[in-house]
């Protein structure tokens, strides 16, 4: 399982990559593996939307289940990844790259401090596996 060191993670399996006030959000490798083959991604936000921690970003459907993707931090949406609606399989093949979901300008960059680092997230995933 791939858990990049430079990212922060939310308990509901979203990742955040931070550069100054800008944050990019997607779902983790663990999450895509649990969901299995993803067949549908519906991003329910658009640029300009104000979001809080916990706001639903997107609904994902796999052959096994449907799941909400939650915002791990608050801010204003700058861009959403519209490519995912036609190519949902990117979430399986490249969860940390081409399958980013939204980019936001954070209200408070300190928000990420409440999230897990890669070591904590790795342990969190291992505890749930068996």
């Amino acid at each position, binding site marked *: 399982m791939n858990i990049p060191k430079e990212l922060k993670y939310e308990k509901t399996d979203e990742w955040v990559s931070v550069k100054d006030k800008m944050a990019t959000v997607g779902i983790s490798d663990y999450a895509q593996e649990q969901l299995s083959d993803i*067949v549908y991604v519906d991003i329910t936000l658009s640029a300009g939307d104000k979001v809080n921690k916990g706001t639903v970003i997107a609904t994902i459907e796999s*052959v096994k289940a449907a799941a909400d993707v939650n915002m791990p931090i608050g801010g204003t949406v700058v861009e959403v990844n519209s490519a995912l609606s036609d190519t949902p399989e990117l979430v399986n093949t490249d969860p940390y790259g081409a399958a980013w979901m939204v980019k936001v300008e954070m209200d408070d960059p300190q928000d990420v401090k409440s999230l897990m680092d890669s070591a904590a997230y790795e342990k969190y995933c291992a505890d*749930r596996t068996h």
Partner: protein
Amino acid sequence: MREPTIFELSSNGRTGVIFPEADVPLAELPEKMLRRDLPLPEISEIDVVRHFTHLSHLNYSIDENIYPLGSCTMKYNPRINEETARMPGFIFSHPMQAIETVQGNLVLMYQLQEWLKAISGFHAITLQPAAGAHGEFTGVLIIRAYHRDRNDLKRTKILIPDSAHGTNPASSSMIGMEVLTVPSDARGNVDLAALKKSCDETTAGLMLTNPNTLGLFDENIQQVIDIVHQAGGLVYGDGANLNALMGIIRPADMGIDLMHFNLHKTFSTPHGGGGPGSGPVGVSEALVDFLPEPVVGVIEEAEEDLPPLYGFIKPAKTIGRMKSFQGHFGVLVRAFTYIMMHGAAGLRNASEMAVLNANYLLARLRNTYKVPYDRICMHEFVAEGRWPDAEGIHALDIAKRLIDYNLHPPTNYFPLIVPEALMIEPTETESKQSLDAFVDIMIKIAGEAHSSPELLKNAPHHAPVKRLDEVKAARDLTLCCGRTE
């Protein structure tokens, strides 16, 4: 052998029907209304009969073998249900007839309402909703109407445990309610601390399935309901799992305010491919006025030698009609028959046997399959379809391998809170022999998962079609029958 599709059996110019001579003058259709590309199969009558007879031989049914997904698919439907539903008085009546001419039908509906009241403890019943999720939709409309009637307009949130059926949030969202998920605790109960935190003056209600989809009776049911009531919300019961409770506890006595029944699950009427469902809703006294119209009642009391006249009553603050005419009447006849044949003691016995059978399976399987919430279950339990030392084996592989043993797989990947979930519900009618046969095969498959995993990963091997490509089916939504170009 694979049966060809009916389109593949088509042969140009072959025909199964001969139209009679027209007894009206022929008229040409306007050119712009004609289409040239309607590739309907051209087949003779005998080939149509053979094709569908072949397909029927491929069916799996409760008449042949156990359904380990239990009443969610279909528990055994006693044959007498079909006999009563075919009685001429029922099948030749019409919902537009004057009520004086269909008193028998109305008495049946009235009596069914009374029996459902006795089983559940509720104050009144609507028989209209067409199925379980329609009952939920009706219930949430009643909850909204109740709050609005008291001019309490802030209550827009419905709380739903994370073990709930997916229809609960769907029904609530359709009405415009905001859905808040409540987590489960380590024993599979509603997490009380999280529930308290979620309850406030915006809480319209909680939708609760008890026993829940893990097959567990909530050990804190009284506190759960009290917390919601203290916040001013109502508690909706999802009656999908009533099969575990009949004659043992009445949902209204737990403090549940309203609940739907799945006649097509608990009361043994066909559903799925076999027929429409029926999801009556029962309500407490405070909600009687909001029921959908009409409900069946006595509109003229009995006089000396005359029986009472049954008819339709409009509740004072009704949410309106939920279904045309009187719901799925044929289903009501079957449920009525089931209750009448069993009687109170028989219904209790059915629930007790359903619980006993599930616990027997649990006891025989828990050493082979991990059961994450392992305590005395009700009518079903949930196991994990994976082992740390059988890499790459998933619940789906176990389900597909069961098909090779001519068994219908149990529900898999639900509830979502159990990874690789296999939900197993035997129902009350299975004998010890059929339960043992199922367990033996489940244990054999667990052995194969470790010794020859490819047997599972490539299963089914002995079905008319091999493993279907579900991913392609979901991603590539092109349905193309009979077009060869």
